[in-house]
């Protein structure tokens, strides 16, 4: 049975029997046969040892050769994804479009692929055929943004979802500024218009921002502390030239510590 699996599939092509394999993403079952529903390379995920489950047939949405050759062990343990839309628990990168007292509106730029490592090359992310690197580094331009934002999924970060501690003392204006790139986790599909995001985790928050004069601001590592009055973390010293002196604004909601840290540095410099 296992001999006749094609390497490439087009929609409507029969891949195998549903008695032998389980149907994964990119396939559908019709009359006890698994058919491909998208065009792409066919990948056979071996069955988990010492379980009753069958090997899963799926059609990959990612066409890059690197993603195919990578072992599929990561995807085996994560939930299968049937589309490239933001789903509950998916990690997204989003740009802040509006900051209000109770919430911040963001537009989702890219849904990060769970199968790739968190710090993997962003260009491999499969959801968008835009050039992600250029999206992230381009300065927020409020004038011509409206058109592209309509093509992106909108999301909301509510005040209570910004951080895990001291939720009642969050001031949204100090957490986000328009144009910041936020790494968030989808809480729910939300209402008819927007998804709901949270940044209340150590690996979530603002990852890229510009100061008022337009220079890049680099987030401090979460483990580092500004100890003493003038001692700065080594990272901070490295970037001091690029940043200029008075250009740090306190919008890093990377974590409670980072937010707490920022005003200290401001006063130091």
């Amino acid at each position, binding site marked *: 049975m296992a001999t006749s699996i094609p390497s490439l599939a087009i929609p409507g092509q029969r891949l195998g029997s549903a008695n032998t394999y389980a149907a994964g993403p990119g396939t559908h079952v019709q009359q006890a046969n698994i058919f491909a529903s998208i065009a792409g390379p066919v990948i056979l995920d071996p069955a988990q040892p010492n379980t009753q489950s069958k090997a899963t047939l799926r059609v990959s949405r990612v066409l890059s050769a690197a993603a195919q050759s990578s072992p599929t062990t990561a995807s085996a343990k994560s939930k299968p994804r049937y589309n490239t839309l933001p789903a509950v628990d998916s990690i997204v990168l989003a740009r802040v479009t509006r900051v209000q007292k109770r919430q911040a509106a963001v537009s989702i730029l890219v849904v990060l692929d769970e199968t790739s490592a968190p710090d993997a090359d962003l260009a491999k992310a499969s959801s968008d055929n835009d050039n992600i690197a250029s999206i992230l580094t381009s300065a927020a331009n409020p004038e011509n943004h409206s058109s592209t934002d309509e093509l992106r999924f909108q999301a909301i970060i509510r005040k209570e979802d910004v951080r895990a501690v001291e939720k009642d003392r969050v001031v949204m204006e100090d957490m986000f500024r328009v144009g910041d790139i936020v790494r968030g986790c989808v809480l729910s*599909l939300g209402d008819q218009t927007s998804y709901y995001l949270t940044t209340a985790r150590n690996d979530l928050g603002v990852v890229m921002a510009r100061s008022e004069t337009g220079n890049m601001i680099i987030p401090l590592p979460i483990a580092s502390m500004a100890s003493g009055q003038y001692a700065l973390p080594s990272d901070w010293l490295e970037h001091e030239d690029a940043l200029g002196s008075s250009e740090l604004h306190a919008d890093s909601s990377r974590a409670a510590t980072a937010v707490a840290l920022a005003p200290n540095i401001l006063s130091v410099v």
Partner: protein
Amino acid sequence: MNDRRRVNGPPGGTRPPVYASLLQSGTGADIRAQRQRQPTDLRKIFLKTGLIPSASGSSYLEFEPSASLAAARSNPKSLIPPSSALKLACTVHGPKPLPRSAPFSPNLVLTTHVKYAPFAARKRKGHVRDSSERDLGVHLETALRGAIIAERWPKSGLDITVTILEAEDDRWWGDVPDSHDASWGMMNVLAGCISAASAAIADAHIDCLDLVSGGVAALVSDDSTDSSSALPKLMLDTDPAEHRSIVSACVVAYMPARDEITELWLKGDSSKVSTADGDERSGHEALIDGAVDAARGAHTVLAEAVRESLQKALGQS
């Protein structure tokens, strides 16, 4: 609002005058397009996907020009081409968020637009979509809705836009309109739209049950003899310009892997057909079977085009 300060040209295009004597004379008969293919022969199809980089999926489809059109192009005798060959481009945008006013939808919301370019037909089309274009859009949406797995894309919309660059004629251009005249060319256009949209959807990686392809068949009354007793013949992939009188025509959107029809559009009187000996099918059945056969033929091109673009994408990265 007309511009009253200048002398404007006519709102539509103009055509060189053609005199009835020319059409009736021997030279006129030469101009008339004649079907050179066998009744079951299909025209060749050119189909390529991924030509529009800004769209998430796109395709371009072109039918092979008829023999008379190819001859007229290489050796023009008249300013007027004897027939036309379908050319169209299809773009797929999405999945993208629904507009703010739209209610929550757990499924993919499909929107289709079909638009003729102003120069696509012999009679110029306006920039606003007219009723026939809206009609084609509805037919296309029905055809695709049955093929797309909509529940895999919640809360998102898919816009499919087909631009027709060259449309099929409804009849030979020299013929006067008569009673059994209908927009037969629209049916060929719809079949092309279905195949092209299907390729563009596959290019956009939207989940589908199968590559749905369009096919046209028609019952054509005998050209040579004018006796009304002759039964109409079944022809696949008819070019209306090549036939004197089309009695009825049928277009289907067909999924070969499941043997399912998602869209069926039949026009005219399909009660009578001249079939081979031992063929007990009614004219209606023969017509639909013929359209399905034509769709099967289009599907081979479609599958090859999708596979080709897939291999190209894999080879590049």
